[in-house]
């Protein structure tokens, strides 16, 4: 079937297309070049006046895994407030901050997103993460495997093992967990907490292993780089949420020693200690560092006002944050000598000084970081806000008037502590397309996503060009996934199942001679059962295809 999308204004930054009126042709799930004159078009969509982009890509969203399911279990009130009725096409589900996977997939698709990546997969929990992503309809998906608090790695580091062995272990982890990137969360800190160590600064030794978070970042950035994994080490840094952690963030950049590094939800890591309340914005310093260091990329993790839940692998930080949660309940877990997790609900309020300043800090980061190819649009769903807040966030970035109106409503002391009101910048549609499509695809190494050139996957989102950018981005007119129309006017019209994306760098299988005895002596699962087989992934994802992207070596 050949589809023609006619006359839309195409924003395709990966191919340098900035609002040109162009036709697109979709066939067999791909964008194809304009076919010869006598080829019959089966269906034509008149997109005059519409804005056309590739399907959105969320490179950091907690859509699957044990901690999200714990959040769901703990918050029935969140679900009761937001039921999702069964329709002729879609199943029933519910939830706002911790939605069911079914609701999450439908809402992402209706909002024009076609790929989502779970950024914190504990290797021992990878099956559950892939099952949950498998039950997330329509969108393509993939995951980042967490390392850095697993005892196996920490033992290697403490023993001074060489980088080659660490590389093999990292590659083996990607193989066993079928993931696309490597994540580190509070490097060494999740483990340290199990030893009753309550904080772990970048250059502070782990109480048992003696290694520092800097050591962990150094070897993991090197491993990811030497293996040729496209996406840099994805770093949730030390001291999340702690006033003054801007210093930690800047030092974390230095820990990469010039190799590529991605700082995630950097808003939570951009705090100073100035002012009467010893809490201030460090956004300018972080933005300046990102601007200066071409090896650094980041996603913001913007906070938006309203109720949500924080679900994180960072058990140390979540235990510390639990008393501030609303409602007052929290889950913390230590998990399998692998990592841990913590779940704490929050209600972010614009009348709360800290929340209001956090909101402003996130926006400062977006607006002060110059290169849109190195900053990505996230709310660290659901930690900063549910992903359904993206349209309002886009409007805040594109519409200075709206932004300043909102700024006028926040806690006045917070307003006094931010430079946000003096920043005139407004993002263009082209730049938004970079932040939400082209940039994420490039950093993840997804060569045929995030753009609309011939050969790309036919994931296309069509918006009406409205002055109210929130309304525009909330309700795309058409969403195509693999060339099929899956949503129209904010409603899902067809349910499909997306693909899994992963990488598989080569490694010396000798690492299994170390892992086998390690599993036998210390763990409670057999090595053979730990590794996920490819046919399992297909079963998880309702027949989903598993796509392996090339590594650079």
């Amino acid at each position, binding site marked *: 079937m050949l589809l023609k999308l006619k006359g839309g204004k195409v924003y395709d930054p990966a191919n340098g297309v900035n609002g040109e009126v162009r036709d697109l042709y979709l066939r067999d799930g791909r964008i194809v070049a304009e076919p010869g004159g006598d080829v019959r078009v089966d269906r034509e969509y008149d997109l005059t006046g519409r804005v056309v982009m590739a399907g959105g890509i969320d490179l950091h969203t907690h859509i*699957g895994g*044990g901690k*999200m*399911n*714990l959040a*769901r*279990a*703990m*918050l*029935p009130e*969140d*679900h*009761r407030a937001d*039921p999702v*009725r*069964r329709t002729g096409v879609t*199943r*029933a*589900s*519910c939830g706002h901050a911790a*939605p*069911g*996977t*079914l*609701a999450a997939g439908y809402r992402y698709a209706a909002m024009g997103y076609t790929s989502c990546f779970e950024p914190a997969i*504990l290797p*021992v*929990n990878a*099956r*559950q993460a892939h*099952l*949950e992503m498998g*039950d997330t309809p329509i969108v393509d998906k993939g995951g980042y495997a967490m390392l850095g608090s697993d*005892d196996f790695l920490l*033992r290697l580091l403490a023993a001074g093992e060489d980088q080659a062995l660490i590389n093999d272990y990292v590659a083996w982890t990607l193989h066993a967990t079928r993931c696309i990137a490597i994540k580190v969360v509070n490097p060494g800190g999740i483990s340290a*907490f*199990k*030893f*009753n160590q309550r904080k772990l600064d970048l250059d502070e030794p782990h109480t048992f292993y003696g290694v520092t978070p800097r050591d962990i970042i150094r070897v993991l950035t090197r491993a990811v780089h030497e293996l040729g994994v496209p996406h840099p080490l994805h770093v949730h840094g030390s001291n999340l949420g702690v006033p003054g952690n801007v210093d930690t963030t800047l030092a974390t950049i230095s820990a990469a020693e010039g190799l590529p590094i991605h700082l995630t939800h950097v808003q939570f890591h951009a705090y100073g200690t100035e002012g009467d309340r010893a809490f201030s914005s460090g956004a300018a310093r972080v933005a300046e560092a990102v601007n200066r260091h071409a090896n650094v990329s980041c996603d913001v993790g913007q906070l938006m006002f309203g109720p949500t839940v924080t679900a994180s692998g960072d058990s140390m930080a979540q*235990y510390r944050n*639990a008393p501030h949660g609303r409602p*007052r*309940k929290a*889950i*913390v*877990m*230590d*998990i*399998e*000598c*692998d990592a841990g997790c913590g779940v704490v609900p929050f209600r972010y309020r614009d009348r709360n000084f800290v929340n209001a300043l956090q909101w402003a800090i996130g926006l400062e980061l977006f607006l002060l970081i110059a290169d849109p190819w190195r900053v990505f649009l996230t709310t660290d769903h659901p930690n900063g806000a549910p992903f359904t807040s993206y349209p309002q966030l886009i409007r805040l970035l594109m519409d200075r008037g709206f932004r300043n109106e909102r700024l006028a409503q926040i806690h006045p002391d917070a307003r006094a502590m931010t430079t946000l009101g003096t920043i005139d910048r407004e993002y263009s549609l082209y730049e938004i397309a970079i932040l939400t499509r082209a940039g994420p695809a490039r950093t993840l190494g997804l060569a045929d996503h995030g753009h609309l050139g011939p050969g790309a996957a036919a994931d296309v989102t069509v918006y009406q060009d409205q002055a109210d950018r929130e309304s525009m981005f909330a309700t795309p007119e058409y969403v195509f996934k693999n060339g099929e129309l899956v949503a129209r006017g904010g409603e899902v019209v067809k349910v499909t199942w997306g693909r899994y994306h992963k990488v598989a760098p080569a490694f010396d299988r000798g690492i299994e001679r170390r892992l086998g005895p390690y599993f036998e002596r*210390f763990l*409670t*699962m*057999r090595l*053979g*059962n730990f590794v996920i*087989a490819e046919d*399992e992934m297909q*079963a998880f994802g309702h027949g989903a295809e598993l796509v392996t992207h090339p590594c650079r070596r």
Partner: protein
Amino acid sequence: MGVCYTCPTMPKSPAPDDIRDVTCPFCGLACDDLVIGVSGERLAVRANGCAISIPAFEASPPAKTTPQIAGRDATLAQAAAEAARLLRDAREPLFAGLGTDVAGARAIARLAERCGGNLDHMNSPATMRNMLALQDRGWITTTLAEVRNRADLLVVAGSDIGRRFPRFYERCLANRETLFAEDRRCEIVFLGSALPEGMPRQEPPPRLLPCDPSRLHEAAGVLRALVAGRTLQASEAAGAPIGAWRELADRMLAARYGVLAWAAADFDLPHAELAVLALCELVRDLNRTTRFSGLPLGGSDGDVTADAVHLWQTGFASRTGYGRGYPEYDPYHLSGTRLLARGEVDVLVWVSAFDPARGPPASAAPAVVLGRAGMIFEQEPAVFIPEGTPGVDHAGHLFRTDRVIALPLRRLRPSALPSVADAVAAIEQVL
């Protein structure tokens, strides 16, 4: 004679084609190191079996594998059609039992939603004791490998863990060598009326703090007060002198990594969720100064699996209904037992693929049973589709008691029996 819970069988002439690293689906530990010998349809546990797994794996293959409609033989297609006919007309179907694997749980969830029915796992009287506490305050918990490597104190609250999870001590506490020590000794303190039989022979030996297990919430309250340094007027609590509780509180505070374990299935008291809540809050209090974690033990008959799958799809676990076209959770009104007792069920779909002894409850409503082949009934069901056992007759996945580990299950022997997912697919096709 005491029962030995940790009795790895002597290999019976081990064969080179024994299947290794087999996951056992018959309790929540989901041990995945079993060695199984296969001869035709007969299985033998060669190594790492226990009092539960050996009879479960070695049970004679079922004689009758034919689907039944009201006791008469039928084909799968005919049985599925009859089940679909009953469900089509049903206005209040109840999907209960829910003893199945991940694929089966996915299938049942889809079917229940389509039929506008209610869902409740057969173990929910036990699992709700934990779920209600979790929903009220959250909790701090740990997993089996952490216990295996870190625990220097295990407090067992009123549960005979070894009876329900025979290899627990062997797999998590018998090891001297850990990641952090060569000679780890974990103290075990049992809170209850008597030390259960079969507790591990180890140094130091497990000790009993004699108390009334029906007053565990009181025990937890007293321990919380003592941990917080309060002075107590009472001289006893839960049937034990305050001095005994003070000693235990001190020992808990001095632990480097303490674990408080319980099996909610053993808390058969009114308002047991309050006892669980109190234990969880005690654990939380201890974390002010040291590291302490709860270890809720469960997971038999796929209860952790069924809850996990429905939770991630919809946000709710057991006791959820689709009567209004979207999932509604009501732990009181949507209890399967209560619905049946009040006659608020017009078709009962009973799923139980692991244990043939866990058949459908008595019910005035016609029953469609997707039960393990070999199940025997007091009341002939309207439809019986004999099922293969996950991890024996077909492959699949199962969640372990600590919730975040999903193990692969394998097909061990040739079998023509459908899985629950297969049976549901057959019903859906004609619904």
